[in-house]
């Protein structure tokens, strides 16, 4: 029996190849995601191990709560002398490292996209120095800098050149005296790394008198662990004390955690491709099982048991799954490099040293690919066992098996209802975000399956609609193509459903993105009364308050108002609470918010006090009314009681859950930097003139910050949305390619079934061109069925998903969707190329004699 199975498999090499390709492409992204992120993680491990190599013990500021927004806590410089004085300490030095933006002397920013550079202090103690010199020397005096060799090479910076660096303070001009590398790697993924002497680095980063870390080397005979214990005893209240190794792991895991979403997202896209691949495997097996019914019947007549037939089909699935997964694994390893390039295009350059292929990657890729293939071939295998032996003796039509239809419809209905219900639970019921995400994902998969199962009933009407123009203008070949596409509605439906998934997700993403753009635009139009907005160049790094102070002195500026962000833990509320700080006095003049409780006076009452106004959504979620008190833990570790004095409805979405006065935010949360600046003009001042003056100021002193008009701000936000959308499109492209493989496969199999018909058509004078056209139109109709189903499903999902989003403006990008449908049709043409050629090449006589 095994022999029969394998022979069946290898008899049709094209079919084998195409089906294996569908498996392989699904596995590719999964394997690629693992390799990609493993490689990045390993690179960070290596980098941090190298930078902490000479450190026995490291002291960093306590972080009472984990925050991913706002300023990190630092240590006072005074701590260093106390640490040095401890017994067992041979050497200790303080250092600073933080984000900064680096430019050349002409104002050209280094590094693509928004990934900022880093400025670090050069350690006075050589063994603490993480980077090593490649050319030149380390900086020895203020005004000098060393640049990482990768950036120096890419940006053509020579020793002696001037670079401009802006961190948390006014920009500094530094002369490059050396180039550096870390762990033997001269580039850390595109970001510029600048070393400067400690006082210079502290000044650039706005951390004068502060350290990010104190590095300690122990006396000989004291182990790092002992030393760490001793220092923890002495300074445990002020600082976190770790051994050098622990510090490296902590830094590395912090970055890994922030990249963790990337692995999840990539795997999700891989899962989508594999899901699409499952449809194709199922379809291919269904078709081949149908075509081989007589063969199975013959085997049954000759005494084969049902189980043997079943095993024979499943063996095919197993071989196909293993082969496809192995190929996919190989492709995935190659894809990892492609993924890196893709992320680089959208401005996220990640370091990668050596490609890491973990055994987990191999096991998961092979197991998932094989299991999905086996699962997809299960139902066709069961069907094969149901053939009656007598069918082998019956002449005429291919034996068929009936009686599944009603059960299938019931199953489809159940899946649809369950899918939508699951998604609703995920979307509306609240709960942890990972649980919600699982509900939504499972719900979406069930919905897709449900639609796929009922789609055979939709094939005929949709084919009639989309086939009409072809029939009208394509004559008999158009009509035949349409008829052929609905001959086996189940087959066409499964083929189209594979494409449907990709199209639905692209539609979904497009609508979501269009809505996001529209929402931002509306918010800016309705809420922003400031003429100009100040922001950091990358849109997310905070900047020194000096920027707004200097802008307030520019001629024509009436008022400036900063917005700051931080986070806190609130007693009795899970997760982090986002916090914004506004200038109680001036904010309302530059940004319109509707006070729903407490009135406009509530904002004035904030003034430097532990009072907060709460956003309407947060208030509703946690039943907070004016007068209520919240117990907060702030990033500085302080416990604070704050009183709610008002509630606001911020349609613009600028403000966080809680808003305080800026001075209170600085005092209680330690947040000294601005994230946004709103600029109001004097009556009569020209926007363009003032904008020009502020631009000149920023260019001179704060090149990492930018000023934008409301319109430019809207455009920039839309640009960011579009960039993300582009990334999603690129990742969904694989799923679409897989579904096109499915169309090719189905056509090839259908054509082999219809060989005799094609022979007849050729015999009675159909030209090769007409045959090709017919196949092409059939593919286009199939693709358009998938396209139409996908568009509708994508729209429904998008509308459903945006329901729980407050203030989300739903905008359907009709133009984009029309283009999508046209592209689906063109994809059909592309998919038809190979099958059409095969059909046209058929030898007429051989085709007529085909049995």
């Amino acid at each position: 029996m095994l022999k029969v199975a394998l022979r069946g498999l290898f008899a049709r090499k094209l079919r084998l190849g195409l089906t294996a390709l569908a498996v392989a492409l699904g596995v590719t992204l999964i394997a690629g995601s693992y390799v990609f992120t493993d490689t990045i993680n390993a690179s960070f491990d290596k980098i941090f191990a190298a930078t902490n190599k000479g450190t026995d013990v490291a002291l960093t500021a306590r972080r009472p709560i984990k925050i991913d927004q706002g300023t990190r806590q630092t240590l006072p410089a005074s701590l260093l002398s106390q640490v040095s004085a401890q017994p067992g300490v041979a050497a200790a030095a303080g250092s600073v490292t933080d984000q900064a933006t680096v430019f050349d002397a002409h104002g050209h920013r280094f590094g693509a996209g928004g990934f900022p550079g880093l400025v670090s202090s050069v350690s006075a103690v050589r063994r603490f120095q993480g980077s090593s010199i490649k050319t030149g020397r380390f900086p020895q005096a203020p005004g000098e800098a060393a640049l990482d060799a990768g950036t120096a090479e890419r940006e053509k910076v020579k020793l002696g050149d001037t670079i401009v660096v802006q961190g948390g303070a006014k920009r500094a001009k530094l002369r490059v005296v050396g180039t550096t590398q870390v762990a033997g790697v001269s580039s850390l993924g595109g970001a510029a790394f600048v070393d400067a002497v400690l006082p210079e680095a502290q000044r650039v980063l706005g951390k004068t008198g502060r350290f990010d870390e104190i590095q300690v080397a122990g006396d000989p005979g004291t182990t790092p662990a002992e030393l760490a214990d001793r220092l923890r005893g002495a300074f445990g209240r002020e600082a976190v004390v770790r051994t050098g190794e622990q510090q490296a792991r902590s830094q590395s895991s912090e970055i890994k955690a922030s990249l963790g979403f990337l692995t999840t997202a990539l795997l999700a896209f891989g899962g989508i491709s594999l899901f699409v691949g499952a449809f194709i495997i199922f379809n291919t097996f269904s078709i081949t099982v149908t075509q081989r019914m007589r063969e199975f019947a013959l085997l049954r007549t000759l005494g084969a048991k049902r189980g043997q037939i079943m095993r024979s089909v499943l063996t095919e699935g197993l071989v196909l799954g293993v082969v496809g997964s192995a190929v996919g694994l190989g492709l995935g390893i190659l894809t990892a490099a492609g993924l890196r390039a893709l992320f680089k295009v959208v401005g996220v350059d990640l370091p990668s040293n050596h490609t890491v292929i973990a055994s987990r990657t191999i096991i998961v890729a092979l197991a998932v690919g094989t299991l999905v293939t086996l699962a997809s071939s299960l139902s066709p295998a069961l069907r094969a066992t149901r053939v009656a032996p007598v069918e082998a003796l019956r002449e005429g039509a291919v034996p068929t098996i009936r009686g599944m239809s009603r059960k299938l419809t019931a199953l489809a209905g159940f899946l649809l209802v369950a899918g939508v219900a699951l998604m609703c639970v995920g979307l509306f019921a609240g709960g942890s975000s990972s649980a919600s995400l699982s509900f939504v994902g499972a719900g979406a998969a069930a919905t897709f399956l449900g639609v796929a199962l009922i789609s055979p009933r939709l094939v005929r009407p949709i084919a009639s609609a989309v086939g009409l123009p072809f029939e009208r203008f394509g004559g008999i070949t158009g009509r035949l193509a349409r008829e052929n596409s609905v001959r086996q509605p189940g087959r066409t439906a499964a083929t189209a459903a594979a494409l449907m998934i990709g199209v639905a997700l692209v539609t979904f993403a497009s609508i979501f993105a269009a809505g996001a753009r529209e929402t931002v635009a509306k918010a800016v139009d309705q809420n922003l009364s400031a003429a100009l907005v100040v922001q950091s160049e990358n849109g997310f790094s905070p900047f020194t308050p000096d920027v707004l102070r200097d802008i307030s002195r520019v001629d024509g500026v009436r008022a400036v108002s900063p917005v700051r962000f931080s986070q806190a833990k609130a007693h009795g509320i899970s997760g982090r609470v986002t916090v914004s700080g506004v200038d109680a006095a001036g904010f309302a003049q530059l940004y319109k918010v509707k006070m729903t409780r407490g009135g406009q006076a509530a904002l004035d009452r904030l003034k430097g006090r532990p009072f907060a106004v709460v956003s309407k959504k947060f208030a509703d979620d946690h039943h907070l009314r004016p007068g209520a008190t919240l117990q907060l833990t702030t990033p500085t570790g302080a416990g604070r009681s704050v009183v709610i004095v008002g509630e606001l409805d911020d349609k613009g979405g600028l403000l966080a859950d809680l808003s305080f006065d800026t001075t209170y935010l600085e005092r209680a949360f330690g947040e000294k930097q601005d994230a946004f600046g709103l600029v109001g003009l004097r009556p009569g001042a020209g926007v363009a003139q003032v904008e020009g003056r502020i631009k000149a100021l920023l260019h001179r002193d704060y090149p990492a910050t930018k000023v934008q008009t409301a319109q430019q701000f809207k455009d920039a936000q839309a640009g960011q949305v579009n960039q993300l959308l582009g990334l999603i499109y690129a990742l969904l492209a694989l799923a679409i390619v897989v579904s096109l493989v499915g169309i090719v496969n189905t056509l090839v199999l259908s054509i082999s079934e219809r060989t005799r018909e094609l022979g007849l058509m050729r015999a009675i004078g159909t030209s090769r061109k007409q045959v090709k056209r017919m196949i092409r139109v059939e593919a286009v109709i199939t693709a358009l069925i998938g396209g139409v189903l996908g568009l509708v499903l994508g729209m429904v999902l998008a509308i459903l998903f945006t329901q729980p989003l407050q203030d989300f403006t739903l905008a359907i990008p009709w133009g984009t969707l029309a283009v999508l449908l046209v592209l689906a049709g063109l994809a059909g043409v592309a998919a038809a190329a190979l099958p059409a050629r095969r059909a046209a090449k058929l030898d007429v006589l051989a085709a007529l004699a085909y049995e």
Partner: protein
Amino acid sequence: MSFSTPEARVAGPAGSALVSATGVTRVYGEGEAEVRALDGVTVGFPAGRFTAIMGPSGSGKSTLMHILAGLDRPTSGSVVLDGIELSALDDARLTDLRRDKVGFVFQSFNLLPVLDARENILLPLSIAGRKPDQAWVGRLIETVGLGDRLSHRPSELSAGQQQRVAIVRALAAQPSVVFADEPTGNLDSKSSAEVLELLRRSVDEFGQTVIMVTHDAQAASYADRLLLLADGLVVHDGEAHSAGDVLDLLKAAG
């Protein structure tokens, strides 16, 4: 087209063949496996005649028909169909020739299952993008008596009905010649008689030229002329009126 009406064809130069093969040889395979399906056949088919080609299995009768119809190419020799030398035509021209000048009837009907009877009949015209001659098609349909079955798909027709649709399809485009390959091979005797009667009438009433391959002596007796092939050669060429005669001839040919 000069031959667009049956009358014009009948009125053509007497004795001149509409389809002719000269020294046609067809060899399949090479060396040890070489098979000579046709070994220098020279034969002409005048317009407006019904010719039956018979012969035992492997005699080359089907090969001859395929070559005459432009479905296959001879290894050597020439074929002229309605004044056109087929060996000079490339695949696209041969396709056009089959479309415009040749009608086919097959043993297994070969109707397209997705089209109804009328659409199947008009298929060759549709492929050519020609408007059907409604009067002509109407007359054909009337002749075969399929008027009430025209909107049925092949699966809803009996085997005899399907074959009659196939014959009308072959006649609809008013081809120069109709080739029928074992047209009664899958039919019972009653349906066979109907089908052969129809082919006969197409010759008598419409002046159609019909060349039919068969190994059914009864079928051959409907023809004007009987051509017997054996081992790739024409071994008999003459009139054949009764099935008995045909059987005698077959016996003689061995």
